Protein backbone atom coordinates (compact mmCIF):
# COMPACT_ATOMS: atom_id res chain seq x y z
CA UNK A 1 0.00 0.00 0.00
CA UNK A 2 1.40 3.23 -1.05
CA UNK A 3 4.50 1.77 -2.51
CA UNK A 4 5.94 3.80 -5.32
CA UNK A 5 5.04 1.19 -7.91
CA UNK A 6 1.35 1.69 -7.19
CA UNK A 7 1.09 5.14 -8.70
CA UNK A 8 2.02 6.86 -11.91
CA UNK A 9 3.83 10.18 -11.91
CA UNK A 10 0.62 12.09 -12.63
CA UNK A 11 -1.24 10.30 -9.83
CA UNK A 12 1.55 11.13 -7.41
CA UNK A 13 1.31 14.77 -8.35
CA UNK A 14 -2.44 14.74 -7.66
CA UNK A 15 -1.84 13.00 -4.33
CA UNK A 16 0.79 15.61 -3.49
CA UNK A 17 -1.61 18.44 -4.29
CA UNK A 18 -4.30 16.89 -2.13
CA UNK A 19 -1.77 16.18 0.63
CA UNK A 20 -0.77 19.82 0.76
CA UNK A 21 -4.10 20.66 2.40
CA UNK A 22 -5.47 17.36 3.58
CA UNK A 23 -8.41 18.79 5.52
CA UNK A 24 -9.53 21.21 2.83
CA UNK A 25 -11.95 20.33 0.07
CA UNK A 26 -10.41 21.26 -3.25
CA UNK A 27 -11.98 21.68 -6.63
CA UNK A 28 -10.84 20.27 -9.92
CA UNK A 29 -9.55 23.46 -11.49
CA UNK A 30 -7.36 24.23 -8.47
CA UNK A 31 -5.92 20.72 -8.62
CA UNK A 32 -5.32 21.10 -12.35
CA UNK A 33 -3.44 24.33 -11.76
CA UNK A 34 -1.34 22.83 -8.98
CA UNK A 35 -0.45 19.70 -10.89
CA UNK A 36 -0.32 21.10 -14.39
CA UNK A 37 -2.54 18.27 -15.59
CA UNK A 38 -5.19 18.67 -18.23
CA UNK A 39 -8.78 17.95 -17.26
CA UNK A 40 -8.88 14.82 -19.39
CA UNK A 41 -5.99 13.41 -17.38
CA UNK A 42 -6.86 14.77 -13.95
CA UNK A 43 -10.42 13.51 -13.70
CA UNK A 44 -9.74 9.87 -14.62
CA UNK A 45 -7.08 9.89 -11.91
CA UNK A 46 -9.53 11.33 -9.38
CA UNK A 47 -12.10 8.72 -10.39
CA UNK A 48 -9.68 5.86 -9.86
CA UNK A 49 -8.48 7.29 -6.56
CA UNK A 50 -12.12 7.53 -5.44
CA UNK A 51 -12.74 3.95 -6.61
CA UNK A 52 -9.94 2.83 -4.34
CA UNK A 53 -11.32 4.77 -1.43
CA UNK A 54 -8.36 7.15 -1.32
CA UNK A 55 -10.30 10.26 -2.28
CA UNK A 56 -13.77 11.36 -1.26
CA UNK A 57 -15.94 13.76 -3.21
CA UNK A 58 -18.91 15.95 -2.51
CA UNK A 59 -21.04 18.51 -4.27
CA UNK A 60 -21.20 22.09 -3.18
CA UNK A 61 -24.76 22.73 -1.97
CA UNK A 62 -24.68 26.50 -2.15
CA UNK A 63 -22.91 27.57 -5.30
CA UNK A 64 -22.01 31.14 -6.09
CA UNK A 65 -24.89 32.97 -7.75
CA UNK A 66 -25.05 32.26 -11.44
CA UNK A 67 -22.54 29.46 -11.16
CA UNK A 68 -23.12 25.72 -11.30
CA UNK A 69 -22.41 23.60 -8.25
CA UNK A 70 -18.81 22.47 -7.97
CA UNK A 71 -17.47 19.08 -7.12
CA UNK A 72 -14.99 19.03 -4.25
CA UNK A 73 -12.31 16.53 -3.36
CA UNK A 74 -10.06 15.61 -0.51
CA UNK A 75 -8.13 12.60 0.74
CA UNK A 76 -9.77 10.09 3.04
CA UNK A 77 -7.90 9.02 6.16
CA UNK A 78 -6.69 5.94 4.32
CA UNK A 79 -5.88 8.06 1.31
CA UNK A 80 -3.77 10.42 3.37
CA UNK A 81 -1.77 7.54 4.83
CA UNK A 82 -1.32 5.95 1.41
CA UNK A 83 -0.39 9.23 -0.24
CA UNK A 84 2.11 10.09 2.48
CA UNK A 85 3.76 6.70 2.13
CA UNK A 86 3.81 6.81 -1.65
CA UNK A 87 5.21 10.32 -1.80
CA UNK A 88 7.86 9.52 0.79
CA UNK A 89 8.83 6.41 -1.15
CA UNK A 90 8.98 8.40 -4.38
CA UNK A 91 11.25 10.99 -2.83
CA UNK A 92 13.50 8.56 -0.92
CA UNK A 93 16.07 6.38 -2.72
CA UNK A 94 17.81 8.35 -5.44
CA UNK A 95 18.99 5.18 -7.26
CA UNK A 96 15.52 3.81 -7.79
CA UNK A 97 14.05 7.20 -8.39
CA UNK A 98 16.61 7.75 -11.11
CA UNK A 99 15.74 4.44 -12.68
CA UNK A 100 12.06 5.31 -12.58
CA UNK A 101 12.66 8.68 -14.10
CA UNK A 102 14.65 7.09 -16.91
CA UNK A 103 11.86 4.61 -17.52
CA UNK A 104 9.39 7.43 -17.79
CA UNK A 105 7.57 6.51 -14.61
CA UNK A 106 9.53 8.59 -12.21
CA UNK A 107 8.22 11.71 -10.61
CA UNK A 108 9.62 14.69 -8.91
CA UNK A 109 6.84 14.65 -6.37
CA UNK A 110 6.26 17.80 -4.41
CA UNK A 111 7.33 17.54 -0.80
CA UNK A 112 4.74 16.23 1.60
CA UNK A 113 3.88 18.88 4.10
Amino acid at each position, binding site marked *: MGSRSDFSAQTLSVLAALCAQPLQ*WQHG*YALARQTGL*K*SGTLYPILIRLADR*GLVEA*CWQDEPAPGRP*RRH*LYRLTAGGLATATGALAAAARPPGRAGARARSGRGVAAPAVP
Partner: protein
Amino acid sequence: MNWLGRAAARLVPAERRDWAEALWAEADEVPAGLARLAWRAGGMRLIAREALLVRRAGRSLVFAAAAAWTAWAAWPGPAGNIATAVDRVDVVTVLLVLAGLPLLARWLIGPAVAGPMARLLRAGAYAAVLVLTAAKPSVEQVVNAPAVVARQAATGRGLQPPAFTWFAETVFLLIVAGYVAAILVLTARRPRVAPATLAIGAGAGILLGVVMCTVTPLGLAKDATEPWLAGSAIDPVVALAWILLLGGPLVAGGMAGWRYRGPGSPEQVANARTWQGVAAGFLATGVGALIVTAAGTGAIALMPRASWLLHWLYPGQHLSAAVAYNRELTASSNAAGYFLMLLAFPIIGLIQGTLGSSWALDRGSRDSGSPPAGGGPPAPEPTGDPPGGQASLPAGTRQAPRAAPRQGALNRI
Protein backbone atom coordinates in the same frame (compact mmCIF):
# COMPACT_ATOMS: atom_id res chain seq x y z
CA MET B 1 -22.02 24.94 -24.40
CA ASN B 2 -23.23 23.85 -20.97
CA TRP B 3 -26.31 22.14 -22.34
CA LEU B 4 -24.06 20.16 -24.67
CA GLY B 5 -21.92 19.04 -21.78
CA ARG B 6 -24.92 18.06 -19.71
CA ALA B 7 -26.38 16.14 -22.63
CA ALA B 8 -23.09 14.39 -23.27
CA ALA B 9 -22.78 13.50 -19.59
CA ARG B 10 -26.03 11.53 -19.91
CA LEU B 11 -24.11 9.05 -22.03
CA VAL B 12 -21.95 8.15 -19.07
CA PRO B 13 -23.14 5.27 -16.84
CA ALA B 14 -25.07 6.51 -13.80
CA GLU B 15 -22.32 5.69 -11.29
CA ARG B 16 -19.85 7.84 -13.24
CA ARG B 17 -22.14 10.67 -14.30
CA ASP B 18 -21.26 12.86 -11.33
CA TRP B 19 -17.69 13.03 -12.53
CA ALA B 20 -18.55 14.08 -16.04
CA GLU B 21 -20.94 16.73 -14.73
CA ALA B 22 -18.31 17.89 -12.23
CA LEU B 23 -15.73 18.42 -14.93
CA TRP B 24 -18.20 20.27 -17.09
CA ALA B 25 -19.39 22.49 -14.24
CA GLU B 26 -15.79 23.34 -13.43
CA ALA B 27 -15.33 24.79 -16.91
CA ASP B 28 -17.07 27.97 -15.74
CA GLU B 29 -14.15 28.61 -13.39
CA VAL B 30 -11.55 28.30 -16.11
CA PRO B 31 -10.58 31.56 -17.84
CA ALA B 32 -12.48 32.03 -21.07
CA GLY B 33 -10.68 31.35 -24.30
CA LEU B 34 -8.32 28.58 -25.21
CA ALA B 35 -7.89 27.40 -21.64
CA ARG B 36 -11.63 26.82 -21.23
CA LEU B 37 -11.83 25.19 -24.62
CA ALA B 38 -9.00 22.83 -23.65
CA TRP B 39 -10.75 22.08 -20.37
CA ARG B 40 -13.95 21.19 -22.19
CA ALA B 41 -12.01 19.10 -24.69
CA GLY B 42 -10.72 17.13 -21.73
CA GLY B 43 -14.31 16.77 -20.59
CA MET B 44 -15.32 15.28 -23.91
CA ARG B 45 -12.37 12.94 -23.69
CA LEU B 46 -13.47 11.83 -20.24
CA ILE B 47 -17.03 11.32 -21.41
CA ALA B 48 -15.91 9.33 -24.44
CA ARG B 49 -13.73 7.22 -22.19
CA GLU B 50 -16.32 6.61 -19.52
CA ALA B 51 -19.41 6.51 -21.66
CA LEU B 52 -18.52 3.21 -23.20
CA LEU B 53 -20.40 4.56 -26.14
CA VAL B 54 -17.92 3.21 -28.59
CA ARG B 55 -17.83 -0.12 -26.81
CA ARG B 56 -21.61 -0.35 -26.74
CA ALA B 57 -21.87 0.54 -30.41
CA GLY B 58 -19.11 -1.94 -31.19
CA ARG B 59 -20.87 -4.69 -29.26
CA SER B 60 -24.12 -4.02 -31.10
CA LEU B 61 -22.34 -4.09 -34.46
CA VAL B 62 -20.55 -7.34 -33.64
CA PHE B 63 -23.82 -8.92 -32.53
CA ALA B 64 -25.62 -7.70 -35.66
CA ALA B 65 -22.87 -9.13 -37.87
CA ALA B 66 -22.88 -12.45 -36.02
CA ALA B 67 -26.68 -12.62 -36.17
CA ALA B 68 -26.63 -11.91 -39.91
CA TRP B 69 -24.04 -14.63 -40.46
CA THR B 70 -26.10 -17.10 -38.40
CA ALA B 71 -29.25 -16.33 -40.37
CA TRP B 72 -27.34 -16.61 -43.64
CA ALA B 73 -25.94 -19.99 -42.61
CA ALA B 74 -29.13 -21.39 -41.11
CA TRP B 75 -31.78 -20.14 -43.52
CA PRO B 76 -31.22 -22.12 -46.75
CA GLY B 77 -32.67 -25.60 -47.04
CA PRO B 78 -34.64 -27.84 -49.38
CA ALA B 79 -38.35 -27.12 -49.46
CA GLY B 80 -39.40 -30.72 -48.90
CA ASN B 81 -37.45 -31.11 -45.69
CA ILE B 82 -39.32 -30.46 -42.46
CA ALA B 83 -36.03 -29.38 -40.90
CA THR B 84 -35.98 -26.32 -43.14
CA ALA B 85 -39.13 -24.85 -41.62
CA VAL B 86 -38.10 -25.91 -38.12
CA ASP B 87 -34.69 -24.30 -38.46
CA ARG B 88 -36.08 -21.05 -39.81
CA VAL B 89 -38.34 -20.77 -36.79
CA ASP B 90 -35.33 -21.74 -34.71
CA VAL B 91 -33.01 -19.04 -36.02
CA VAL B 92 -35.61 -16.27 -35.77
CA THR B 93 -36.53 -17.25 -32.21
CA VAL B 94 -32.94 -17.60 -31.04
CA LEU B 95 -31.96 -14.23 -32.48
CA LEU B 96 -34.96 -12.59 -30.83
CA VAL B 97 -34.07 -14.25 -27.53
CA LEU B 98 -30.45 -13.14 -27.78
CA ALA B 99 -31.41 -9.58 -28.63
CA GLY B 100 -34.31 -9.24 -26.21
CA LEU B 101 -33.25 -11.07 -23.07
CA PRO B 102 -30.39 -8.68 -22.19
CA LEU B 103 -32.83 -5.76 -22.29
CA LEU B 104 -35.25 -7.64 -20.05
CA ALA B 105 -32.44 -8.72 -17.73
CA ARG B 106 -31.10 -5.16 -17.49
CA TRP B 107 -34.56 -3.94 -16.54
CA LEU B 108 -35.21 -6.68 -13.99
CA ILE B 109 -31.81 -7.37 -12.44
CA GLY B 110 -29.57 -4.55 -13.53
CA PRO B 111 -26.68 -4.24 -15.97
CA ALA B 112 -23.72 -6.58 -16.24
CA VAL B 113 -21.19 -6.66 -13.44
CA ALA B 114 -18.21 -4.41 -14.15
CA GLY B 115 -15.05 -6.20 -15.15
CA PRO B 116 -13.94 -8.49 -17.94
CA MET B 117 -15.17 -11.80 -16.50
CA ALA B 118 -18.89 -11.07 -16.90
CA ARG B 119 -18.38 -9.67 -20.40
CA LEU B 120 -16.32 -12.67 -21.46
CA LEU B 121 -18.91 -15.08 -20.12
CA ARG B 122 -21.74 -13.33 -21.91
CA ALA B 123 -19.79 -13.08 -25.15
CA GLY B 124 -18.75 -16.74 -24.94
CA ALA B 125 -22.29 -17.93 -24.27
CA TYR B 126 -23.61 -15.85 -27.17
CA ALA B 127 -20.92 -17.18 -29.50
CA ALA B 128 -21.70 -20.77 -28.51
CA VAL B 129 -25.44 -20.30 -29.05
CA LEU B 130 -24.91 -18.64 -32.43
CA VAL B 131 -22.55 -21.40 -33.59
CA LEU B 132 -25.07 -23.99 -32.42
CA THR B 133 -27.91 -22.20 -34.22
CA ALA B 134 -25.90 -21.93 -37.43
CA ALA B 135 -24.72 -25.55 -37.32
CA LYS B 136 -27.95 -27.27 -36.26
CA PRO B 137 -29.78 -26.95 -39.60
CA SER B 138 -27.05 -28.85 -41.45
CA VAL B 139 -27.28 -31.66 -38.93
CA GLU B 140 -31.06 -31.81 -38.97
CA GLN B 141 -31.36 -31.64 -42.74
CA VAL B 142 -29.22 -34.76 -42.96
CA VAL B 143 -31.34 -36.61 -40.41
CA ASN B 144 -34.62 -35.46 -42.00
CA ALA B 145 -33.55 -35.81 -45.63
CA PRO B 146 -36.37 -37.27 -47.77
CA ALA B 147 -34.30 -40.38 -48.56
CA VAL B 148 -33.69 -41.04 -44.88
CA VAL B 149 -37.34 -40.43 -43.99
CA ALA B 150 -38.48 -42.75 -46.81
CA ARG B 151 -36.17 -45.49 -45.53
CA GLN B 152 -37.44 -45.00 -41.99
CA ALA B 153 -41.02 -45.20 -43.24
CA ALA B 154 -40.25 -48.39 -45.10
CA THR B 155 -38.54 -50.06 -42.19
CA GLY B 156 -40.77 -48.49 -39.54
CA ARG B 157 -37.74 -47.62 -37.42
CA GLY B 158 -36.75 -44.16 -36.24
CA LEU B 159 -39.57 -42.32 -37.99
CA GLN B 160 -40.75 -39.34 -35.98
CA PRO B 161 -44.08 -37.62 -36.57
CA PRO B 162 -43.85 -33.88 -37.39
CA ALA B 163 -45.55 -33.05 -34.09
CA PHE B 164 -42.69 -34.68 -32.22
CA THR B 165 -40.15 -32.70 -34.27
CA TRP B 166 -41.88 -29.44 -33.38
CA PHE B 167 -42.15 -30.48 -29.74
CA ALA B 168 -38.43 -31.30 -29.64
CA GLU B 169 -37.68 -27.96 -31.25
CA THR B 170 -39.74 -26.15 -28.61
CA VAL B 171 -37.83 -27.96 -25.88
CA PHE B 172 -34.54 -27.03 -27.55
CA LEU B 173 -35.52 -23.38 -27.75
CA LEU B 174 -36.56 -23.39 -24.10
CA ILE B 175 -33.22 -24.93 -23.14
CA VAL B 176 -31.29 -22.33 -25.13
CA ALA B 177 -33.36 -19.50 -23.64
CA GLY B 178 -32.76 -20.99 -20.19
CA TYR B 179 -29.00 -21.02 -20.74
CA VAL B 180 -28.93 -17.45 -22.02
CA ALA B 181 -31.12 -16.28 -19.15
CA ALA B 182 -28.98 -18.11 -16.59
CA ILE B 183 -25.76 -16.57 -17.92
CA LEU B 184 -27.35 -13.11 -17.95
CA VAL B 185 -28.60 -13.52 -14.39
CA LEU B 186 -25.29 -14.80 -13.04
CA THR B 187 -23.37 -11.95 -14.66
CA ALA B 188 -25.82 -9.20 -13.69
CA ARG B 189 -25.19 -6.80 -10.88
CA ARG B 190 -28.15 -7.47 -8.62
CA PRO B 191 -27.72 -11.22 -8.01
CA ARG B 192 -24.27 -10.41 -6.59
CA VAL B 193 -22.25 -13.28 -7.95
CA ALA B 194 -18.63 -12.48 -7.13
CA PRO B 195 -16.16 -12.14 -10.04
CA ALA B 196 -14.08 -14.88 -8.40
CA THR B 197 -17.12 -17.18 -8.51
CA LEU B 198 -17.59 -16.45 -12.21
CA ALA B 199 -13.92 -17.14 -12.86
CA ILE B 200 -13.88 -20.39 -10.88
CA GLY B 201 -17.11 -21.71 -12.40
CA ALA B 202 -16.28 -20.70 -15.97
CA GLY B 203 -12.72 -22.03 -15.63
CA ALA B 204 -13.97 -25.43 -14.48
CA GLY B 205 -16.55 -25.42 -17.30
CA ILE B 206 -14.00 -24.58 -19.98
CA LEU B 207 -11.73 -27.34 -18.69
CA LEU B 208 -14.59 -29.84 -18.76
CA GLY B 209 -15.57 -28.76 -22.28
CA VAL B 210 -12.03 -28.98 -23.62
CA VAL B 211 -11.43 -32.41 -22.10
CA MET B 212 -14.72 -33.76 -23.43
CA CYS B 213 -14.01 -32.40 -26.91
CA THR B 214 -10.60 -34.03 -26.69
CA VAL B 215 -12.14 -37.40 -25.85
CA THR B 216 -14.78 -37.34 -28.58
CA PRO B 217 -14.91 -34.38 -30.94
CA LEU B 218 -18.33 -35.53 -32.10
CA GLY B 219 -19.68 -35.71 -28.61
CA LEU B 220 -21.88 -38.72 -28.30
CA ALA B 221 -21.35 -40.24 -31.75
CA LYS B 222 -20.49 -43.89 -31.21
CA ASP B 223 -18.44 -44.27 -34.36
CA ALA B 224 -16.18 -41.29 -33.83
CA THR B 225 -12.60 -41.97 -32.98
CA GLU B 226 -10.26 -39.85 -30.97
CA PRO B 227 -7.91 -38.19 -33.44
CA TRP B 228 -5.73 -36.69 -30.74
CA LEU B 229 -5.36 -39.84 -28.74
CA ALA B 230 -4.61 -43.42 -29.56
CA GLY B 231 -5.06 -46.70 -27.75
CA SER B 232 -4.78 -46.71 -24.02
CA ALA B 233 -4.06 -42.96 -23.86
CA ILE B 234 -7.80 -42.39 -24.11
CA ASP B 235 -8.63 -44.05 -20.79
CA PRO B 236 -7.07 -41.48 -18.45
CA VAL B 237 -8.72 -38.68 -20.41
CA VAL B 238 -12.11 -40.38 -20.16
CA ALA B 239 -11.55 -40.77 -16.42
CA LEU B 240 -10.58 -37.11 -16.24
CA ALA B 241 -13.79 -36.14 -18.05
CA TRP B 242 -15.87 -38.03 -15.50
CA ILE B 243 -13.91 -36.53 -12.63
CA LEU B 244 -14.42 -33.05 -14.06
CA LEU B 245 -18.11 -33.66 -14.64
CA LEU B 246 -18.82 -34.91 -11.14
CA GLY B 247 -15.97 -33.41 -9.14
CA GLY B 248 -15.48 -30.11 -11.00
CA PRO B 249 -18.70 -28.45 -9.82
CA LEU B 250 -18.19 -29.85 -6.34
CA VAL B 251 -14.74 -28.28 -6.05
CA ALA B 252 -15.82 -25.09 -7.84
CA GLY B 253 -18.81 -24.71 -5.53
CA GLY B 254 -16.65 -25.30 -2.48
CA MET B 255 -13.97 -22.87 -3.60
CA ALA B 256 -16.44 -20.16 -4.57
CA GLY B 257 -18.29 -20.45 -1.27
CA TRP B 258 -15.11 -20.56 0.76
CA ARG B 259 -13.50 -17.60 -0.96
CA TYR B 260 -16.57 -15.42 -0.66
CA ARG B 261 -16.09 -12.41 1.55
CA GLY B 262 -18.91 -10.01 1.98
CA PRO B 263 -20.69 -7.82 4.43
CA GLY B 264 -23.71 -8.86 6.47
CA SER B 265 -24.76 -10.95 9.42
CA PRO B 266 -23.44 -14.53 9.72
CA GLU B 267 -26.72 -15.77 8.33
CA GLN B 268 -26.51 -13.44 5.32
CA VAL B 269 -22.92 -14.45 4.69
CA ALA B 270 -23.88 -18.14 4.90
CA ASN B 271 -26.68 -17.60 2.38
CA ALA B 272 -24.35 -15.66 0.11
CA ARG B 273 -21.77 -18.44 0.27
CA THR B 274 -24.36 -21.03 -0.65
CA TRP B 275 -25.42 -18.86 -3.58
CA GLN B 276 -21.81 -18.51 -4.76
CA GLY B 277 -21.40 -22.29 -4.59
CA VAL B 278 -24.58 -22.97 -6.53
CA ALA B 279 -23.61 -20.40 -9.17
CA ALA B 280 -20.12 -21.83 -9.57
CA GLY B 281 -21.49 -25.37 -9.78
CA PHE B 282 -23.95 -24.41 -12.48
CA LEU B 283 -21.26 -22.62 -14.48
CA ALA B 284 -18.82 -25.51 -14.12
CA THR B 285 -21.16 -27.84 -16.00
CA GLY B 286 -23.29 -25.38 -17.99
CA VAL B 287 -20.29 -23.80 -19.69
CA GLY B 288 -18.86 -27.27 -20.37
CA ALA B 289 -22.14 -28.46 -21.92
CA LEU B 290 -22.35 -25.37 -24.12
CA ILE B 291 -18.79 -25.82 -25.37
CA VAL B 292 -19.24 -29.53 -26.12
CA THR B 293 -22.59 -29.00 -27.82
CA ALA B 294 -21.47 -26.06 -29.96
CA ALA B 295 -18.14 -27.64 -30.92
CA GLY B 296 -19.65 -31.08 -31.55
CA THR B 297 -22.60 -29.79 -33.61
CA GLY B 298 -20.26 -27.49 -35.51
CA ALA B 299 -17.93 -30.40 -36.32
CA ILE B 300 -20.84 -32.56 -37.52
CA ALA B 301 -22.14 -29.72 -39.69
CA LEU B 302 -18.70 -29.32 -41.25
CA MET B 303 -18.29 -33.03 -42.07
CA PRO B 304 -19.94 -32.91 -45.52
CA ARG B 305 -18.12 -29.70 -46.40
CA ALA B 306 -14.60 -30.45 -45.22
CA SER B 307 -12.98 -33.68 -46.27
CA TRP B 308 -9.92 -32.85 -44.18
CA LEU B 309 -12.14 -32.94 -41.11
CA LEU B 310 -13.46 -36.39 -41.98
CA HIS B 311 -9.94 -37.71 -42.48
CA TRP B 312 -8.87 -36.09 -39.25
CA LEU B 313 -11.83 -37.49 -37.32
CA TYR B 314 -11.38 -41.00 -38.74
CA PRO B 315 -7.65 -41.28 -39.18
CA GLY B 316 -6.33 -44.13 -41.29
CA GLN B 317 -9.74 -45.13 -42.63
CA HIS B 318 -10.65 -45.39 -46.29
CA LEU B 319 -13.58 -43.01 -46.55
CA SER B 320 -15.49 -43.68 -49.73
CA ALA B 321 -18.51 -41.47 -50.45
CA ALA B 322 -20.87 -44.08 -49.01
CA VAL B 323 -18.80 -44.53 -45.86
CA ALA B 324 -18.45 -40.79 -45.38
CA TYR B 325 -22.21 -40.33 -45.76
CA ASN B 326 -22.80 -43.14 -43.31
CA ARG B 327 -20.46 -41.53 -40.78
CA GLU B 328 -22.17 -38.20 -41.28
CA LEU B 329 -25.65 -39.69 -40.88
CA THR B 330 -24.65 -41.56 -37.73
CA ALA B 331 -23.06 -38.49 -36.19
CA SER B 332 -26.08 -36.36 -37.11
CA SER B 333 -28.50 -38.88 -35.62
CA ASN B 334 -26.51 -39.02 -32.40
CA ALA B 335 -26.40 -35.24 -32.14
CA ALA B 336 -29.79 -35.40 -30.44
CA GLY B 337 -27.89 -36.66 -27.42
CA TYR B 338 -26.70 -33.11 -26.87
CA PHE B 339 -30.22 -32.30 -25.69
CA LEU B 340 -29.67 -34.63 -22.77
CA MET B 341 -26.27 -33.14 -22.08
CA LEU B 342 -27.64 -29.60 -22.08
CA LEU B 343 -30.37 -30.68 -19.67
CA ALA B 344 -28.47 -33.04 -17.39
CA PHE B 345 -25.17 -31.22 -16.94
CA PRO B 346 -26.55 -28.12 -15.19
CA ILE B 347 -28.60 -30.30 -12.85
CA ILE B 348 -25.44 -32.19 -11.91
CA GLY B 349 -23.69 -28.85 -11.47
CA LEU B 350 -26.41 -27.42 -9.25
CA ILE B 351 -26.41 -30.48 -6.99
CA GLN B 352 -22.63 -30.69 -6.77
CA GLY B 353 -22.26 -26.94 -6.33
CA THR B 354 -24.71 -27.00 -3.43
CA LEU B 355 -22.76 -29.85 -1.84
CA GLY B 356 -19.52 -27.96 -2.35
CA SER B 357 -20.91 -24.80 -0.80
CA SER B 358 -22.15 -26.74 2.24
CA TRP B 359 -18.54 -27.86 2.70
CA ALA B 360 -17.50 -24.23 2.42
CA LEU B 361 -20.07 -23.23 5.03
CA ASP B 362 -18.78 -25.89 7.38
CA ARG B 363 -15.20 -24.82 6.75
CA GLY B 364 -16.12 -21.15 7.08
CA SER B 365 -17.80 -21.64 10.44
CA ARG B 366 -14.73 -23.52 11.69
CA ASP B 367 -12.52 -20.69 10.49
CA SER B 368 -14.85 -18.33 12.40
CA GLY B 369 -15.90 -16.53 9.25
CA SER B 370 -12.53 -15.37 8.04
CA PRO B 371 -12.04 -16.70 4.57
CA PRO B 372 -9.03 -15.54 2.60
CA ALA B 373 -9.08 -12.22 0.91
CA GLY B 374 -9.74 -11.72 -2.71
CA GLY B 375 -12.92 -13.69 -3.18
CA GLY B 376 -16.13 -11.77 -3.08
CA PRO B 377 -17.34 -8.32 -3.65
CA PRO B 378 -15.37 -5.91 -1.52
CA ALA B 379 -16.78 -4.82 1.78
CA PRO B 380 -17.79 -1.18 1.96
CA GLU B 381 -14.80 1.06 2.28
CA PRO B 382 -14.52 3.10 5.44
CA THR B 383 -14.95 6.77 4.75
CA GLY B 384 -13.21 8.16 7.75
CA ASP B 385 -11.99 11.68 8.10
CA PRO B 386 -8.31 12.51 8.03
CA PRO B 387 -6.43 11.88 11.27
CA GLY B 388 -7.33 14.22 14.02
CA GLY B 389 -10.99 14.07 13.22
CA GLN B 390 -11.30 17.85 13.01
CA ALA B 391 -12.47 17.76 9.48
CA SER B 392 -16.09 17.96 8.65
CA LEU B 393 -18.04 18.92 5.60
CA PRO B 394 -17.71 22.61 4.98
CA ALA B 395 -20.82 24.70 5.15
CA GLY B 396 -22.80 24.54 1.99
CA THR B 397 -21.70 21.08 0.96
CA ARG B 398 -23.21 17.68 0.98
CA GLN B 399 -21.61 14.29 0.62
CA ALA B 400 -21.87 12.96 -2.91
CA PRO B 401 -22.46 9.28 -3.46
CA ARG B 402 -19.12 7.66 -4.08
CA ALA B 403 -18.62 6.06 -7.44
CA ALA B 404 -19.16 2.31 -7.23
CA PRO B 405 -15.88 0.47 -6.71
CA ARG B 406 -14.77 -1.25 -9.86
CA GLN B 407 -14.20 -4.96 -9.56
CA GLY B 408 -10.79 -6.00 -10.71
CA ALA B 409 -9.50 -2.47 -11.05
CA LEU B 410 -5.89 -2.25 -12.04
CA ASN B 411 -3.53 -1.99 -9.14
CA ARG B 412 -1.53 0.73 -10.73
CA ILE B 413 -3.31 4.01 -11.05
